[in-house]
């Protein structure tokens, strides 16, 4: 039986999974505000990234590229290289999907795009399943001991500290990008008003490509981090997190990337802490219930503007 003494530890788990949910949520939020539709394929972009990383990592290992662990972490150069390349390849794949489908459907409106994204979701997931089977795959089978933080009996693995640190760094980078670069400002402008952006002379197609680069890149990152945290990946990895991600996005205020970060954290922590009281199986339902409560209380979310 779980006791209150476990709650600090659960909070830490919550922050870890909240980090991953938040990274996924930023992409959903950007696509929603800039392209104007809810992208239900986002979870599968995460899985795609995780599997591309797996493929590359297997390849690199075969080529004899070293993966001697960095310090206390469970992985080394080979994996990091695969990680980075997987981010780039996922972004490219998603841009291709955009060119092939979403771009052509943009004139048809948000609902058609939403529907198309469901097709993409199922298609991608089954492509992964076709090549890798529905069975779990492992980045590493090694067991990493958790270390004690020395307070409140909290234990955490070095890999998990890496996940949190990377998420923090990426959030800061994305924030700086949106705040200070010309492209970041153009993304915010287009989220405000896409027609005006076009009238102003902003190259909206380039803004869209950058939106996908960031969204898909962060999705791949989130997928790979989920693989590191869970120790395995399956083609359903992203779909299983999608509800939590959307709940976080709605909670924070749909279309607001900062809200997605905050909401993702709240959802991650609530899901983990809830396991002290109810069956672990109900984690996604916890996210769902929080989302519904938010919609009843304030549909624009914690940080949402009204519109």
């Amino acid at each position, binding site marked *: 039986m779980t006791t209150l003494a476990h709650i600090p530890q659960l909070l830490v788990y919550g922050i870890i999974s909240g980090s991953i949910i938040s990274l996924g949520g930023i992409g959903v939020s950007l696509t929603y505000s800039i392209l104007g539709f809810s992208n239900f394929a986002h979870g599968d972009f995460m899985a795609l990234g995780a599997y591309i990383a797996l493929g590359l990592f297997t390849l690199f290992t075969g080529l004899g590229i070293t993966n001697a662990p960095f310090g206390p972490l469970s992985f080394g150069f080979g994996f990091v290289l695969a990680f980075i390349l997987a981010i780039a390849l996922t972004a490219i794949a998603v841009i291709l999907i955009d060119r092939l489908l979403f771009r052509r459907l943009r004139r048809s409106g948000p609902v058609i795009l939403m529907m198309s994204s469901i097709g993409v979701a199922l298609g991608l997931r089954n492509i992964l399943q076709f090549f890798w089977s529905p069975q779990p795959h492992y980045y590493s089978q090694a067991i990493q001991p958790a270390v004690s933080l020395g307070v409140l009996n909290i234990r955490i693995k070095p890999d998990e500290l890496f996940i949190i640190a990377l998420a923090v760094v990426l959030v800061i980078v994305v924030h700086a990008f949106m705040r200070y670069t010309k492209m970041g400002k153009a993304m915010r402008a287009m989220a405000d008003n896409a027609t005006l952006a076009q*009238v102003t002379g902003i190259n909206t197609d380039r803004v869209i490509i950058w939106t996908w680069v960031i969204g898909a890149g962060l999705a791949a990152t989130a997928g790979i981090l989920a693989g590191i945290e869970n120790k395995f990946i399956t083609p359903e990895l992203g779909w299983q997190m999608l509800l939590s991600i959307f709940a976080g996005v709605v909670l924070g205020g749909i279309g607001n990337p900062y809200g997605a970060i905050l909401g993702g954290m709240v959802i991650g922590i609530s899901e983990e802490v809830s396991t002290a009281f109810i069956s672990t199986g109900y984690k996604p339902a916890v996210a769902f219930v929080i989302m519904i409560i938010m919609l009843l209380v304030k549909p624009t979310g914690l940080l949402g503007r009204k519109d």
Partner: protein
Amino acid sequence: MSLLTVEKVTSGYGDMEVLHEVSIAVDSQEIVTIIGPNGAGKSTLMKTIFGLLKPKSGRISFSDHEISALSADRIVRLGMAYVPQVENVFPSLTVRENLEMGAFIRSDDFSGRIREMYDLFPILGRRGRQQVGKMSGGERQMVAMARALMLNPQLILLDEPSAALAPNLAEVIFERIEAINDTGVAILIVEQNARQSLSLSDRGYVLASGRNRFTDTGENLLANEEIGQLYLGG
């Protein structure tokens, strides 16, 4: 050869035609006003000129380019700018960021142009870092105009720049419009209650039910009794 020529343009939304063979022209450095009642199709004409709606027939040319089939982002590059009637600023961006967006396609240093805009609209200079969404209607209108001017356009389209502004603020806006015109920019203004606008215009058009009704100099239109009764509120 006029700077902007609209010849017998028919346009609308989907199957619905709003404009029927409308023709207008704007010469370089001119101020031209289009007036007409609500729903006459004035905004529709602006959107059609600027490539947001495709004309079903007729042609539009701008400084020797046929632009009827061009999209808005191409037209911007030819030296035309457009300030829509509503939602004409990026509310979550600061004043300065709005102006930067206006200069998106410029790769040179445009800080000089921003300073010129701050000289033209001193309020904006003092509020550069303020979020535009939190500004008043008049200030937003200035941001919108400044944004549109960032690329040094030859022609700027203003859709009801003084709508919903207090009379003294409208005064300020029209005074600024003249100042902009003095720098050599041609201006096409749409106005509903348009005495003020016509009085500073070289020429004016009256549009009703999507058709040309009258065309004359600003002065003559103002002097015309029938127009005064029908379109200028007596």
